[in-house]
């Protein structure tokens, strides 16, 4: 892994007034993304529009594909062609992408997908907010595999975390997701884009050894195999079938065990380096509010009110949702009276918190089907219930 400064061509240094969708496009350009394939879907389309407008001046490809299946698959091809590719989508498009998200994980292909979440299931609420794809992003494709998912809570973080998403994808050869939502995606705020030499960009771990010795799936010390790109003379093979270190298909239980465990271990064993969260007043907290995305912004009001009422409330905001900060939740479960988990779904991340708390502390959910954000009073009620 090599860290370099951002290519100035893609960086729009300065203070801007942008919505989250636009900030994702700028983050991608700053991170060195020069390939975007997508299909229009509300509320994510603005990212595609911004990218298609900007890329002719930077040098690269914007292509509107025939559907989301084609978009994600073109990304996998583009990544093996040496690009850092991205797409954006929302619920229905995300569902269409699932099979080939599995292919990207299986082929260990770096790429970035942003999901600007809207209300589901099915066509649901195209123009209104939701956070109900949080388990789908982790489990939506068939079989066992691991991915990385980040959750921005502001347009500024949409920029910052998109840069980070590309860096993680390149570091771990894995699909990385920006799980934002309609509110953050359409919210306009100040976004400061730093000068290129202050933006750190990770270069792919390219293999440079003898051509006939290259093994596309031989794990390096950090468990991440070296990569090459098509056209460099390695004559390599890769497949969605269960494969050995050569990338050749081998259809038996032994190689399946090696192959699947490798995909999972690569992320799990590196998770302390990947996981990021923000805590506030957590040391003496009786109750900890765990939230992410737009809901963490709404929770601020409830937490302030609870503190005014004399309740010791701490907050933990998930920046990385997957891999989940298991160890930290376990540790807190031994200290606090209860967790409160507000989210715009019927308890997806609450389920994960319950798993980690393992009965040591109760977990009070504040479910909401989406369409609008929580009433802070509902979160406040849950906090009060938690200390009772």
């Amino acid at each position: 892994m090599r860290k370099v400064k951002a290519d100035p061509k893609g960086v729009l240094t300065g203070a801007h007034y942008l919505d989250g969708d636009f900030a994702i496009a700028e983050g991608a350009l700053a991170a060195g993304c020069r390939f975007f394939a997508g299909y229009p879907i509300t509320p994510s389309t603005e990212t595609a529009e911004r990218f298609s407008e900007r890329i002719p001046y930077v040098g690269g490809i914007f292509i509107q594909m025939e559907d989301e299946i084609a978009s994600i698959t073109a990304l996998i091809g583009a990544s093996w062609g040496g690009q850092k590719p991205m797409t954006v989508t929302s619920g229905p498009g995300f569902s269409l992408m699932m099979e080939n998200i599995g292919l990207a994980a299986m082929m260990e292909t770096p790429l970035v997908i942003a999901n600007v979440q809207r209300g589901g299931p099915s066509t649901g609420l195209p123009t209104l907010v939701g956070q109900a794809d949080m388990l789908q992003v982790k489990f939506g494709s068939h079989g066992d595999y691991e991915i990385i998912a980040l959750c921005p809570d502001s347009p500024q973080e949409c920029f910052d975390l998109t840069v980070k998403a590309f860096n993680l994808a390149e570091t771990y050869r894995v699909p990385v997701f920006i799980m934002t939502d309609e509110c953050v995606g359409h919210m306009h705020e100040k976004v400061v884009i730093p000068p290129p030499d202050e933006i750190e960009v990770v270069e792919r771990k390219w293999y440079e050894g003898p051509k006939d010795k290259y093994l596309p799936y031989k794990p390096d010390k950090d468990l991440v195999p070296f990569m090459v790109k098509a056209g460099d003379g390695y004559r390599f093979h890769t497949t969605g079938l269960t494969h050995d270190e050569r990338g050749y298909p081998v259809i038996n239980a032994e190689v399946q065990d090696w192959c699947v465990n490798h995909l999972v271990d690569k992320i799990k064993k590196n998770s302390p380096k990947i996981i990021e969260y923000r805590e506030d007043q957590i040391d003496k907290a009786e109750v900890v509010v765990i939230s992410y995305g737009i809901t963490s912004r709404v929770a601020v009001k409830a937490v302030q009110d609870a503190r005014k009422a004399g309740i010791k409330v701490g907050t933990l905001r998930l920046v990385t949702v997957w891999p989940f900060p298991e160890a930290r939740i376990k540790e807190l479960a031994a200290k606090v009276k209860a967790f409160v988990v507000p989210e715009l779904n019927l308890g997806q991340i609450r389920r994960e918190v319950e798993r980690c708390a393992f009965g040591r502390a109760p977990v009070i959910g504040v479910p909401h089907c989406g369409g609008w954000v929580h009433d802070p009073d509902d979160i406040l009620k849950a906090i009060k219930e938690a200390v009772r």
Partner: protein
Amino acid sequence: MNEEARQEEKNPMEDFLRMDRIPHIWCPGCGIGTVVTSFVEALKKSELDLKKLAVVSGIGCTGRVAGYVKFDSFHSTHGRAIPFATGLKLANPELKVVVFSGDGDIAGIGGNHLIHAARRNMDIVVICVNNFNYAMTGGQVAATTPRLANLSTAPYGNFEYSFSLPYLVDTCGATYVARWTSLHIRRVTKSIQEALAKKGFSFIEVITPCVTLYARRNRLGDGLNLLKYYYDKSEIRHGADTRTVDIDFQGKLIVGKFVDKEKPTFLECMNTHLQKTLGEKYMPYGVKP
């Protein structure tokens, strides 16, 4: 030839195949291997830099081609070889990208990608092996199955209309369209050679016998019989109007080079248009300085 000399002699395709993966999985009498041989022969005759060649397959019997050829080769998901190839080609326009897959993969589940790649005039070569059925899964009816043919999910005969692939891709804008049977070895080779030398969306359909399933269910004899049968039933008609090349069960097979024309590719259109619209501020893509 004595035994020693025989052992020393190299298989003429060795440099093009992953010999560590041979024997392949195809049935005796299957036509896919013959098409691969034609592909290799075409490569030998072409002046392509093989380092810059990538082969993409989908899923199915023909989908296994990517695993046997010794180039940068990608075995993608069912139906998605064309968008995979699109990403690869646009990511690195120096590559020559060949999609090698079956009729079910390219025209059935992947039909949407096929028509859009032809519409965009994406600069890729598609070799579509058409054996009239889904063979890897045991001989099910396909979008290309002629009416009346019997298959495991059309046990009383197929009553659906089928795609005529040359007509489909011609209508969508393909710049090179040919159809042969797998016994037209020299002609398949020549078509692949021409397609490789050409810019734009090229499509070559090769009718091949599926001995184990299609032939057996329809009592069409063994591999050799069926090869000869398709060959004998075929009539070469270069430049034929693709509206007239439908395939009937047991009927005539119109083969030949139907389309060979010039038209700017996706990348050429993009560069020309944006250059014209944006002037000097435009950063051309994939063009050598």
